[in-house]
């Protein structure tokens, strides 16, 4: 518990420095609980998520960084590896391939990379996965684009 707190504090300080370096990620620690974080990430360009701002929630376990943070999308997203209802993310580094070498910041980068490179063969959202697996890129993109507009972009007027 003490070790995880110390580590998270180091990450907190690092995040303050990195803000300038990586404008696509804005990590925020809960005011009263260092084990709860949220992040705002920008949808990568040249993807259906471009222009969207997606919110992630992190719950940090007691044995962090030996155990991975739990991460999920709070913003609705249509993506093969994100559960459409719960926002759960299917990403190996959040499960078996986790290592303390990762940080909350680098996990965010990995999630952005996942948005740009979906892996339809291990889908959490089967509809999205099936569209990609059947080669219907246009279908996938239009669905993903629509949800980006509906959920991840500021409402106009």
């Amino acid at each position, binding site marked *: 518990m003490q070790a995880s707190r110390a*580590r998270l504090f180091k990450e907190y300080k690092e995040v303050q420095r990195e803000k300038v370096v990586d404008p696509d990620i804005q990590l925020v620690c809960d005011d009263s609980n260092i084990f709860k974080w949220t992040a705002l990430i920008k949808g990568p360009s040249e993807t259906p998520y471009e222009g969207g701002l997606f919110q992630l929630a992190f719950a940090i376990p007691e044995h962090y960084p030996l155990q991975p943070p739990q991460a999920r999308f709070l913003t*609705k997203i249509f993506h093969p590896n994100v559960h459409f*209802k719960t926002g759960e993310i299917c990403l190996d580094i959040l499960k078996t391939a986790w290592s*303390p*070498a990762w940080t909350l910041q680098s996990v965010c980068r990995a999630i952005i990379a996942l948005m740009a490179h979906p892996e339809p063969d291990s889908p959490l959202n089967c*509809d999205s996965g*099936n569209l990609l697996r059947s080669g219907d890129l246009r279908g996938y993109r239009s669905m993903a684009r629509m949800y980006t507009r509906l959920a991840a972009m500021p409402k106009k007027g």
Partner: protein
Amino acid sequence: MPDSTEAAEEPRSDQNPNPSASGFLGAVTAEEGNEWSSFRDDEIMKQHSEIQAVEAVKIPFVGDKEPITALAAEFQYGSPILQEKIKLIAEQYLALRRTRGDGNCFFRSFMFSYLEHILETQDKAEVERIIAHIEMCKKTLKSQGFTDFTFEDFFSTFLEQLESVSQGQDASISHDELLERSRDQSISDYVVMFFRFVTTGEIRSRSEFFEPFILGLTNSSNTVDQFCKTSVEPMGEESDHVHITALSDALGVAIRVVYLDRSSCEAGPVTINHHDFIPSAPSKMSTERDDSTMASTNIITETATVSNPSEQEDGTTATAATTEDSRPPFVTLLYRPGHYDILYPK
């Protein structure tokens, strides 16, 4: 195939925002989706720790010292060849100390065996030597782009343990205390992770050397990086020759592995194989050699006493047959397919 009109209809079904239930694709996949949703991340993690808890009851991270006869008892209904081999092991080895089979057994065995050796010998020169190597490992990791704070806690945990076993005969922690710490997850797992960082740094810095050995283990194209990310850096990933070679080289500590498996039992009398992992000449030190200061020369000489000079030219490890002139490695592990324990020579 969703055209724009159908897609536009989606958000209207307020009660059921899941598109899998909305018709065109839903029939086949809805059920699958539900199955998945019942396995949440936290539940999977919970299940993992429950399995670990069951294992923990069977054996602590590091077990008690057992007479070598315990091994014979375990295999009394096993293959006759293995029974023969155990007899041979019993001729040379006194005792055995088991470690938990949680994928970290090699690192955990090395940790205990090494620290116990330092505690018993109070070998100050060895402590200084390994500390110099550890400093090198830190620099290596930094140069590879690892962020300091991701590994420094693990390094300090190991250095703390090293310090507390090398305070001299009276001031050091007791043997029992060392055992207790090795069983304490918050220390034991941190030391394991320290070794994983050291190992990954070494493999990455000599990727061209390790690549041929890794090539057969993964299908991926970016083999070394991928191997380190998936098979070295995460906790619970099992070790093999690549890990052992890298750790031995990085820390400059020789490791003897005794094989209790079905190897070399085809023809002739049953023999017991062992393999000595002799650290190759510390390539990273050679850059310092240019300074030709006394200090760095000392480090090299010290390394040479645990290395086998004859093996340093080609940088590979070899079996013990040729190492009569150097003292045997003080870390001795027993390998059974998929698992490492600690062995105590007579």
